[in-house]
């Protein structure tokens, strides 16, 4: 792709054009932008420069502690920003130039809105006078991203930049978090202005409700206390609002079993005795049976996604539903709530935990324990072919669930969701709502930049890894210590599984002829390990986790015939769950 870059960025001994004489407080729009980012506490930006964003990059040249990470594809920039945001809880920032640069952000922005991740995307735009003229590298990016941003804006004067960007950060991180895009024409970035920085935000149409209605909370507490078979169904909203401790307090105070969504993994320590792990299409049988049998279901920060519910009318059919969500539009969207509570998960759970009374549920636990013992997740590891589930299980054992695990999308993602048991929130990061292949490695890189002292490990499939693996170059350049475990089954595994189960085994375009990933890694300057025998797995995982200063790609050749089970077929209910082959 051609990106206009006629001005050499370095060395810059002689500026092409003398800077405008700095008069009292006068800066250009790009400098105002950089100053605003600094005031927002931004430490790192992921991006790729181009013609329309050159003024911004010129301002970034001497932006001091504000680091810019040059990635090799804008999609990586936005996934890295998402990984950064999800690992740290701070707003992730990415940037791209106009046209093709900006459109390359689209997938990651859509991922961020589906998973409610706070990111700000700054895009360059063609100069004001040619907007709408089909100018070189022009795309209507505010138009394109309208359905996938929480808000977006095209800034038409330099003086507006501080307010627009400050507002973008405010919108991204408050209420239900989400992506916000700010589009800045090149000449606006060059225009001189006297910026006014303010901490105030006044958006008349935006007033998130954070405190749940006390009478509704009281009703919920009463319903839980009187329940005979209660279950808590916790989603990504619990993690997004940092409500892990409050959830734990409520669970400890009441003894109610907890099921987690894919996005909610780690909201409760998954070794907590009350934690039943993931529910839904590939959730555990006992988690799904518990929800199916529940008489009261407390849903927090979750949205009754179809991958959780299957056929909605048969989901939790006997339960009174208490639904807590900061987004009023989620309540009643898919499943009516008997007790709706609009509010921030952390605040609502704190009040609930303080008021909660323990229900008498010994016989309920007896039933759940029996289910759990009868139908645990299981796999079979034989002597010659490596089970991908065995690798996930080993990774869980080797890290103790204390590493930040970031997955790509597909079979390996579900096996990780089943076998990896994060001990804390923000320790399981995956593309939940949109299901983006190519997400895992860039998001893991972003997470590592956010939390350099944590162990971060990427687990990817051979299909998804090839969608963004060019950025091994970036990870090598910045000395990122990142184990990347490729569960390589020579196929688009989940596609293959569906073809095998629902399309009569006609493997149409789902089998992959792969490169040697270990040698690919070495070509990029990373470390590569190829694993072909079961007994090599544990050692290779340990070696990768101990590798410092470069990514380490572990190419694990897995059994292609292994399926993700249990499975509730799409659009069906718990009654139709497939437990075994």
């Amino acid at each position, binding site marked *: 792709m051609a990106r206009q870059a006629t001005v050499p960025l370095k060395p810059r001994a002689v500026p092409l054009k003398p800077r405008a004489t700095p008069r009292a407080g006068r800066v250009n729009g790009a400098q105002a932008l950089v100053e605003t980012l600094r005031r927002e506490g931004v430490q790192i930006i992921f991006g790729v420069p181009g013609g329309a964003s050159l003024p911004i990059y010129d301002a970034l040249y001497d932006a001091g502690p504000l680091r810019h990470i040059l990635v090799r594809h804008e999609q990586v920039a936005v996934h890295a920003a998402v990984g950064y945001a999800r690992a740290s809880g701070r707003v992730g920032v990415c940037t791209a130039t106009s046209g093709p640069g900006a459109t390359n952000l689209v997938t990651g922005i859509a991922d961020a809105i589906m998973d409610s991740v706070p990111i700000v995307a700054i895009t360059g735009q063609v100069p004001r006078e040619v907007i709408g003229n089909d100018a070189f590298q022009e795309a209507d990016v505010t138009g394109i991203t*309208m*359905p996938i941003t*929480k808000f977006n804006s095209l800034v038409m004067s330099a003086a507006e930049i501080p307010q627009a960007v400050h507002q973008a950060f405010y919108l991204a991180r408050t209420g239900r978090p989400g992506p916000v895009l700010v589009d800045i024409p090149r000449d606006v970035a060059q225009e001189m202005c006297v910026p006014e920085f303010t901490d105030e935000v006044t958006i008349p149409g935006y007033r998130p409700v954070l405190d749940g209605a006390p009478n509704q909370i009281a009703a919920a507490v009463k319903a839980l206390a009187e329940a005979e078979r209660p279950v808590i169904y916790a989603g990504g909203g619990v993690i997004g609002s940092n409500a892990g401790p409050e959830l734990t307090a409520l669970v400890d105070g009441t003894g109610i079993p907890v099921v987690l969504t894919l996005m909610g993994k780690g909201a409760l320590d998954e070794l907590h005795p009350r934690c039943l792990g993931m529910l839904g299409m590939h959730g555990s049988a006992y988690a799904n049976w518990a929800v199916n049998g529940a008489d009261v279901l407390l849903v927090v920060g979750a949205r009754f996604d179809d991958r959780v519910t299957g056929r909605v009318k048969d989901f939790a059919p006997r339960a009174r539903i208490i639904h807590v969500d900061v987004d009023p539009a989620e309540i009643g969207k898919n499943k009516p709530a008997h007790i709706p509570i609009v509010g921030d998960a952390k605040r609502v759970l704190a009040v609930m935990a303080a008021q909660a009374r323990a229900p008498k549920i010994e016989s309920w636990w007896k039933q759940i324990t029996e289910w759990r013992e009868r139908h645990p997740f299981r796999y079979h590891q034989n002597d010659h072919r490596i089970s991908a589930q065995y690798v996930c299980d080993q990774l869980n054992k080797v890290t103790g669930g204390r590493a930040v695990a970031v997955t790509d999308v597909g079979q390996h993602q579900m096996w990780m969701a089943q076998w990896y048991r994060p001990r804390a929130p923000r320790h399981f990061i995956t593309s939940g709502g949109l299901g983006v292949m190519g997400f895992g490695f860039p998001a893991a890189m972003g997470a590592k930049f956010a939390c350099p002292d944590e162990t971060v490990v990427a687990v990817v499939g051979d299909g998804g890894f090839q969608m963004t693996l060019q950025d091994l170059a970036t990870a090598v350049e910045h000395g990122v210590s990142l184990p990347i475990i490729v569960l390589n089954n020579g196929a688009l595994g989940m596609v293959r599984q569906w073809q095998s189960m629902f399309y009569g085994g006609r493997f149409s375009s789902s089998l992959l002829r792969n490169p040697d990933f270990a040698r690919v890694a070495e070509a990029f300057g990373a470390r590569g390990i190829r694993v072909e025998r079961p007994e090599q797995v544990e050692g290779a995982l340990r070696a990768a986790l101990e590798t410092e200063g470069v990514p380490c790609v572990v190419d694990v050749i897995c059994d292609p015939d292994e399926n993700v089970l249990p499975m509730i077929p799409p659009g069906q209910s718990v009654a139709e769950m497939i437990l075994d082959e």
Partner: protein
Amino acid sequence: MSEPHSATISVLVRNAPGVLVRVAGLIRRRGINIHSLSVGPTEDPSTSRMTIVVDTAPERTELFAKQLRKLVEVLRATAIDGTPSVDRELALIKVNVTSGTRMEIMEIASVFRANIVDLTDRTMTIEVTGRTEKVDAMLTLLTRHGIREMARTGQVTLVRGPQNT
């Protein structure tokens, strides 16, 4: 889910670039068909009111208003379902006339309290205001004379009494 029906949603928005597209786009991607959408300024020059008539099941109407409220520029979104309201639409109808039909058409216009706003030896343009059903009824009568052109504003609505829309 019950039968689709027409629901009216009144949306108060800030005047900002792209607001109309944002609102219309949200409706489209929720898979809802728009009957009519009218926009105009309100008593406050910084805001506009959109009156949107959509095909949607009654129990979805409030959910749909909630989705609209999520838009940052939307100040209010009210599902007007069952609330007494004043609903009006304006239509300009250009109809064929001959010397033989002119009087009859003028009578129709008079019955509907419509105004004749343009007249030639072959055409007549009639301005009619009222509920959508009234405009439809008048159109039915005029159809056999041959309607050459028509423009309708779509419905505008305010809730009756002191209550805000």
